[in-house]
């Protein structure tokens, strides 16, 4: 499928994933870090505000100066579901999704991988997973997976 797609002109509006490279995206360092297995966000160097998702304008003090910080690798499920019908074409059922919460109170919507329905429990501990985006461009996307014993 990816081979056939690469023969077609690239249609950005049918692409679920953002363009991640420095030529296209001021937040490209997020994706560079993720490729190294690190989940990051921006921190405002003026007021210290830490948002999710990362931002180039601080909603708290309106500064546009920021640095990158690492987020914890682990979080807990705040709410979750598994979609079993009507998922968008590039996704497969069952599609596990959760809102996860870090120790610092920050929340993040994420898909869950390496998961079964037994893992879908509010409070369940999950950890970062990094996925390759299929297709001709080299891109990555973050996900979480349940923390298993040992």
């Amino acid at each position, binding site marked *: 499928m990816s081979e056939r797609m690469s023969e077609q002109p690239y249609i950005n509006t049918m692409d679920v994933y953002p363009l991640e490279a420095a030529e296209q995206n001021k937040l490209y360092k997020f994706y560079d870090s993720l490729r190294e297995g690190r989940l990051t966000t921006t921190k405002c160097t003026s007021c210290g505000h830490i948002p999710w*998702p990362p931002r180039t304008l601080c909603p708290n003090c309106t500064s546009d100066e920021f640095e990158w910080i690492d987020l914890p690798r682990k979080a807990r499920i*705040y709410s979750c579901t598994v*979609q079993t019908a009507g998922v968008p074409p590039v996704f497969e059922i069952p599609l596990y999704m959760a809102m996860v919460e870090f120790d610092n109170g920050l929340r993040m*919507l994420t898909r869950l991988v390496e998961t079964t329905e037994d893992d879908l429990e509010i409070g369940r501990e999950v950890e970062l997973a990094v996925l390759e985006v299929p297709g001709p461009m080299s891109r990555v996307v973050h996900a979480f997976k349940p923390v298993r014993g040992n």
Partner: protein
Amino acid sequence: MEIRRVAVVAGGASKFGARQATYRDLISEAGKACYDSAPGLSPNDIEGFLLSTVMPERFVFQTHVAPLAAETLGVTPSKLVARVELLCASGSSAIRLAYGFIASGLADVIMVAGAEKMYTPNPAETVHHTLAAGDREWDAIHGLTAPPSFAMVAQRHMKEYGTTKEQLALVSVKNRRNGARNPIAQFRKPITVEEVYASKLVAKPLNLFDCCPITDGAAVIVLAAEHRVKDFTNEPIWIWGTGQAGGGNNAANVPGWAEWPRLRVAAKNAYQMAGVAPEDIDVAEVHDCFTISEIIEYEELGFCAKGEGGKFIEEGRSDYGGQVVVNPGGGLISRGHPFGATGIAQAIEMKQQLHGHAGDRQVPNAEIALTHNLSGFATEHTIMIYGREPK
């Protein structure tokens, strides 16, 4: 500046459903119904035109749609022409804006149309387009569309307040029963709780019949300043109050899950402006995009205490003979949900209810009506309060 009184003087909708019709066909059909509702009204009376529509660029590959729709309806605007987009709450937002424009004296007569053509030959394409509603870079990358969003809201409400799957299903049963009596509704067959359970599981805990459908449809109303009202109708409904509050788009920044604090703000402002309390509302059309939504809306609109929305439906308090009849027109679940047309269709239902033209779904002696329209991850809320008499 003097605030002028404003009324809805005409309204009509297309049939809602999976339609063998184009975007423009739907607009024509709704426009015809609107003109027919007020024989004194002609396209030449209309000074302003707003079109509520969400993603015609994706569904029908058309932009610059407000002039297209105005042209289709014979309207040549002299004071206002624009498109309004606020996802599922575009319709009420357009009404709110038209209200402000007329109340302030910038125009006397404005047509507010809403339209969405959502069915595409390949159903997967329609679902793909709805990904554009979320935060594409941070949420849609995970496949997040509306059903899993509201499924996660339901999980929180069930955990925090003990809301049950049966209570969710009862919302669908009520709204399907009401929609069965609404000629424009997409679904016109009542269902049972067992049929909700037996419908396909979409996103736990929501089954297919807990969800509103994909819908093609259009609806058109006309708003007028007080001194023009009698030129068009003897049966206006008057805008007593309106409120709107927003909370953002990214799922992580939603200011509440089982709680919808931005709805509380919008409701408070609307009630205050109208000079009414929740218990004064006789009839309401609320945004039941999913069954859980209507339950939370009972609570945040003040129809019942926080956490008691499940009990409210169970005890029949949102049904005929109860405290307030909610979604007599079938709501989004039964009437259908063509994004941009929904808020307009809510207003039309209220015009029919307040003047005794709702047929066998008529709410007896309804005088004060409320509509609630939400968008996104239940973050943006728009409310209108209408009265049969001017205030």
